[in-house]
């Protein structure tokens, strides 16, 4: 039977919470644990994975969807990260502007990417149709929140749609930029309580990533945190989350 990769979508509703950075870093952490990883830049148009990593894609996503270019030809191999990237640069705008058929096409392309064990989807900001559909279609949804109230309400909005679209699914909460571990737990509990009370949904905690200046440093240098600052707090946090995700996958 052909390998069917596990699709892990990363959403937040709000922008700037660290989705793209986290997706990149998780991709490397998962790849380091063994098992090929593909990172799909679902923040189409903004092409933020390319930018954060300083990569220049050779092919547009549209060429892959139309069949002119194969998936293997279109992916970029990150030389140090040990994972592949499918750029979202398409000229067709963001995922939210994509027509439903193209969204389904992307999903089946990713589901059929049998060369990978894990496909990470960086869904970009917003709650538009395409984002909503991909969040619901993923095997696991990681909803990222920070302690900011606006991030909490946006993360809650993501969970609300998810509760409606894929109630039985596997959605987890990830807190990023936490001042301390305890503060991150409090942020999780706040969001969890809202989900339990209003949505009758009790999402588990995927993990907490602490705020760490090394993150901004790595991004500024267009390099990977696990390469540049492999022993910093945020690196350890992401590695712990990767371990937790792998465990659940094996179980």
């Amino acid at each position, binding site marked *: 039977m052909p390998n069917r990769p596990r699709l892990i979508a990363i959403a937040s509703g709000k922008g700037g919470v660290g989705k793209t950075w986290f997706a990149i870093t998780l991709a490397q952490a998962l790849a380091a644990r063994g098992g090929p990883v593909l990172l799909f830049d679902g923040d189409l148009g903004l092409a933020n994975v390319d930018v954060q990593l300083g990569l220049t894609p050779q092919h547009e996503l549209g060429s892959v969807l139309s*069949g002119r270019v194969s998936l293997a030809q279109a992916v970029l191999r990150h030389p140090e990260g040990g994972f592949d990237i499918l750029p979202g640069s398409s000229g067709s705008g963001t995922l939210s502007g994509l027509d*439903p*058929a193209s969204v*389904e*096409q992307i999903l*089946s392309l990713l589901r059929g990417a049998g060369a990978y064990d894990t496909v990470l989807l960086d869904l970009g900001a917003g709650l538009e*149709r395409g984002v*909503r*559909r991909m969040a*619901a*279609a993923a095997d696991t949804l990681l909803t990222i929140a920070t302690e900011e*109230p606006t991030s*909490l*309400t946006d993360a*809650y*909005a993501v969970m*609300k*749609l998810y*509760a*409606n*679209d894929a109630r039985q699914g596997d959605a987890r909460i990830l807190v990023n930029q936490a001042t301390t571990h305890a503060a991150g737990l*409090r942020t999780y*509990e*706040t*969001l969890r*309580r*809202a989900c339990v*009370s*209003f949505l009758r949904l009790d999402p588990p905690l995927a993990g907490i990533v602490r705020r760490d200046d090394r993150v901004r440093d790595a991004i500024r240098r267009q390099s990977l945190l696990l390469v540049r600052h492999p022993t910093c707090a945020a690196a350890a946090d992401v590695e712990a989350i990767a371990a937790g995700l792998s465990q659940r996958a094996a179980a």
Partner: protein
Amino acid sequence: MRLRLFRAPNMAEAMARVRAELGDDALILGTRPVQEGVEITAALESAASVAPAARPPVVPDPRRADLLAFHAVPETLRPALADGPLDQALRRALPFHRLALTGDARPLLLVGTPGAGKTLTVARLATRLVLAGCAPMVITADAKRAGATEQLAAFTRLLGLTLTVASHPVTVGRALARRPPGAPVLIDCPGTDAFDPTQMEELRALAAAADGTVALVLPAGLQVEEAADLAQAHAANGAEMLVATRLDLARRFGGLLAAAAAASLPLAEAGIGPGAADGLVPLTPEELARRMEARLAPSAAAAGDVADRLPRPAPTAAPRHHGPPPRREVDTHPTAAPTSHPMPPPASWQAAAMPDPRAPLHAGQAASVRPRPTPMPAPRARQDVRHAE
């Protein structure tokens, strides 16, 4: 969800502010000590429900596109067949009709180009009716073509039916006046050139005299425009449905689909193999979809073709006989006969090929259609062929 943070020197004051601003329905999501005292995170959820999930849209299946291209399905039909299960798409896109050959139905005239499979279709429909215990009246209006009568007679003989020859509207009318009560009527028409006005005029006169339903017999595998033209010409001359033939031999069904669509002629029956009893089946969307798809699945197609050629299991129930029992030359209870070599199962005669039209059979040769250890029955009193003209 509305989310608000409230800070106050103490808990009671903070809670009072929450109630004042969010009301009694406010939910406390969290509290934490801060420099000024305490911070409460509270939320209010509006009752407004979530917009229904964007249902995954039906995505055009690239393999479907390949399938439609392979069958040379006309461009105009492709959007309607592009997605969803093929049988359901066919059901929506094309007309289908279940042929009802009841005793009180109007006579059924089989028309079409020479060699389309009209005579074979009449023979198969007659066989189906006899097996169902309902002996039909079989008429051939094809008196011109050498051997045409004998070809059909060889079959009606096997079924114990009398073949009536009537090729002129007047004689057809006369023959039908003697239609046995409760007998469905099948009329084999001469092969016609659909674009010859004289021939089509004659066909119309025949159909009018019989007050019959005209079914166009159309071989699968014809080129798309050819098939569509043919169907339209016949529809303009009164054809009401399509009987497709050679589904087992043709590779591409675009012509068939084009004919049904262009002429709005419902698909009724399909010739799927050489058997007399099982070589014709009602043409349903499911049957058509299965056969179309089998053509692109190499292994499945091969298996399907083998299955087409294998004799089907014999009907489990013995033919029911209503009204006058049809006379049968073929012993359907071979176990009753002494066997010198293995008896073919009853199914094998049902699957027997049509007598070779190039070698017209005589009464005494009918049994040669299959190996038969028992001698022929004594000469029959009743006529095999009756000339009405």
